[in-house]
């Protein structure tokens, strides 16, 4: 045990938890009413959301002030690191439920419906993926050819591995090696986009997120070396890449709905929109986190050796990236 005998910071009594509980009560009861078409529902949800925003601003504002005020020692810093890691683990498990669902419907539920027993009820049903089920209707335009896909996937994995590896020179303070790896990542991303059809939206989205991982890593390097200008610049670029991703996603959804692929289009529509939708929600949250970090930096927060809030947001962003790579593989390609 290498623990110092410094005093652990225990915060003063606070109303924010109670306000947060009120917010969720309003949102939970409001949402129950809303989905049952009771008029007060949307209003309750909106007011709950407003209370939640107020709570988040107040609470995180307090935490930021306490942090900048030097109240958090090394041990508190370590607590934050542990907790962010476990929080991301809980998010991983949330997505795991949906990945498991996709696996189950593709490899068990839909094939079963096309088996002898299924034919008893729906003789005309052919089990194939994508499927909207026996009573659904689905036509999909094809993705790029298999050869291109294989090459593209190899490049995607390489780019993901490269930007992950970049954290080694980042930790070791090796500037030239970090630059080399990040440039290499961006080149791989370009090649990936070339290998896939260049105007295929999901591929563009993959490229956007991989590139944002590289820019974010450079932003991290900048703050570690006290270069605030460059930090702000690359953080802003990362946020923009994330927002463009969300724009592409919105475009894709619009196309899908025009061509008849909806949330209610059987099990394919269900899994497609729920998985990409929840991912998009997490990109939104990640982008908001990074934006808050940008504003904090503009307000003079963070120093070369104290910037865990930013690192936590960066961990979250990388997590969202990895989820996307897996989504791209199992939702769009396979």
């Amino acid at each position: 045990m290498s623990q110092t005998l410094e005093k652990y910071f225990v915060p003063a009594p606070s109303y924010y938890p109670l306000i947060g509980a009120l917010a969720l009560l309003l949102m939970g009861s409001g949402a129950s009413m809303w989905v049952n078409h009771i008029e007060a529902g949307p209003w309750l949800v909106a007011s709950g959301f407003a209370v939640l925003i107020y709570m988040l601003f107040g609470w995180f504002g307090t935490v930021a002030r306490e942090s900048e005020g030097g109240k958090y020692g090394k041990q508190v810093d370590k607590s934050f690191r542990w907790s962010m890691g476990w929080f991301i683990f809980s998010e991983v498990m949330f997505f795991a439920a949906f990945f498991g669902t996709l696996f189950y419907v593709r490899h068990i539920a839909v094939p079963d419906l096309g088996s002898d027993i299924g034919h008893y009820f729906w003789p005309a049903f052919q089990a194939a993926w994508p499927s909207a089920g026996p009573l659904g209707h689905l036509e999909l335009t094809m993705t790029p050819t298999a050869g291109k896909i294989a090459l593209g996937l190899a490049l995607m994995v390489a780019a993901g591995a490269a930007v992950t590896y970049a954290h080694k020179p980042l930790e070791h303070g090796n500037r030239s090696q970090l630059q080399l790896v990040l440039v290499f990542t961006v080149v791989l991303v370009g090649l990936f986009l070339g290998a896939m059809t260049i105007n295929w939206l999901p591929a563009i989205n993959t490229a956007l997120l991989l590139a944002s991982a590289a820019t974010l890593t450079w932003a991290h390097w900048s703050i570690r070396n006290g270069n605030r200008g460059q930090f702000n610049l690359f953080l802003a670029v990362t946020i923009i890449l994330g927002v463009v991703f969300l724009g592409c996603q919105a475009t894709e959804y619009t196309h899908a709905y025009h061509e008849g692929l909806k949330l209610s289009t059987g099990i394919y529509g269900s899994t497609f929109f729920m998985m990409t939708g929840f991912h998009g929600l997490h990109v939104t949250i990640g982008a908001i986190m990074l934006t808050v970090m940008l504003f904090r930096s503009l307000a003079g927060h963070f120093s070369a050796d104290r910037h865990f809030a930013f690192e936590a947001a960066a961990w979250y962003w990388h997590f969202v990236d990895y989820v996307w790579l897996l989504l791209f593989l199992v939702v769009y390609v396979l």
Partner: protein
Amino acid sequence: MSAVSPDVVGGHDHSHDHDHHGAPTGLKRWLTATNHKDIGTLYLFFSFIMFLTGGTLALTIRAELFQPGLQIVRPEFFNQLTTMHGLIMVFGAIMPAFVGFANWMIPLMIGAPDMAFARMNNWSFWLLPPAALLLVGSFFVPGGANAAGWTMYAPLSLQMGMGMDMSIFAVHIMGASSIMGAINIVVTILNMRAPGMTLMKMPMFAWTWLITAYLLIAVMPVLAGAVTMLLTDRHFGTTFFNAAGGGDPVLYQHVFWFFGHPEVYIMILPAFGIVSQIVPAFARKPLFGYASMVYATASIAILSFVVWAHHMFTTGMPAVTQITFMYMTMLIAVPTGVKVFNWIATMWRGSMTFETPMLFAVGFIFVFTMGGFTGLMLAIAPADIQYQDTYFVVAHFHYVLVAGSLFALFAGTYFWIPKWTGHMYDEKLGKRHFWMSMISFNVTFFPMHFLGLAGMPRRVPDYNPFFTDFNQIATVGAFGFGLSQVFFLYIVLKCIKGGPKAADKPWDGAEGLEWTLPSPPPFHTFEVPPQFEAPAGHGH
């Protein structure tokens, strides 16, 4: 016997208290609490209120079942009663009660000044009353409360009214509360132990909670995913659980039980921890096989992820899947057996006394083991096809959840209430509470084994007159059990109000940092971490 350097024993030294805050007074103290002891108290009282609420539902069920035919409630309402009894007891009573124990005891046991995130700790607690409001309030909306069983199986759960949606959102909120609470506990244990307290010197209660918290973080999000899919199937046109759209109702069961089985261990591992603290104290011997206890707990946690389909043996899974899950399930008997034998070995040739905590702990070992044996019977796939959805299952899980979790909670309460209140409880009344609970519990649930084996299905308000006798015995027992718990409330309130002054260490065989503190401990404890040294002769 744990050595603590005298100058830093919490509370004795107030010279370094300059920038800390005392408790605000009145209601504000509880609404804005950032103190682990206050939040622990809130959790414990909340869980007891929910326990009485869920108990009232149970007694209504038993009253209806006193005779065949319909006497008191309509069948639809009966289904709401069984469903809400389950949801309220699992999420409102048992889980928050253990979190209350974690809040009170873990910082005291590991020598931490508080929980790692004191404000978030309070949010975890205050999320529970809104969730409880949604659950209980759902009885009063059109269509009534959730009546699909606490497991909320599709397609039944796709067909109900607004009460179902309220259950879904309540589960979301309780899930958020549990995840935050669990992260808090994991971080507190990993990061805030006193110098000298290595992981393998930690009290078993802290170990079991560390593993429980890990399980919570792993599976509560999966439950959130399951009920979210219910919600979108109900209102937004998805077809996850609808075969016509290519989905499958059985998928819900898979996702639910991937959460549900670890959940079972979430409700029992902290109970193991409490019993592992109490048995050595009253046998006046160190815990036998501490390390094997830790590894057994971890093994149970890992195995809990690969046994979920034993809840689904009658869904038409392929035989190979059934056999796999059957063997994995039976494997869990090994680490559980390690624990039971370790407790018995701890008592072996100890100088034992039987104060109320020990009575409940020994009662726990005895009755929980019976629940474990019926669990083994249920694990056998071909036999389970007979037992599925009968009262045998009801008997089994009440043996592990009531005589298991709840008895351990009682044991823990009697063990630590002198520390919490500074008063000794009334030993005579405590013992009376134990015998009342133990006898009425068995009168209630033992006949259910026979009912189940004879084929009485669960979740029905009416039954063949053939089953009447055992049902009447069970109902009499249930009301006795309910009465015993009101008696428990009286004992606790009496102890809070007054009683003989409790010593710092009221149990001469007890070990651990919490007993180095005064009873009751001061508002802030261990602001400077104590130096922990494992007691000499400690068996590990």
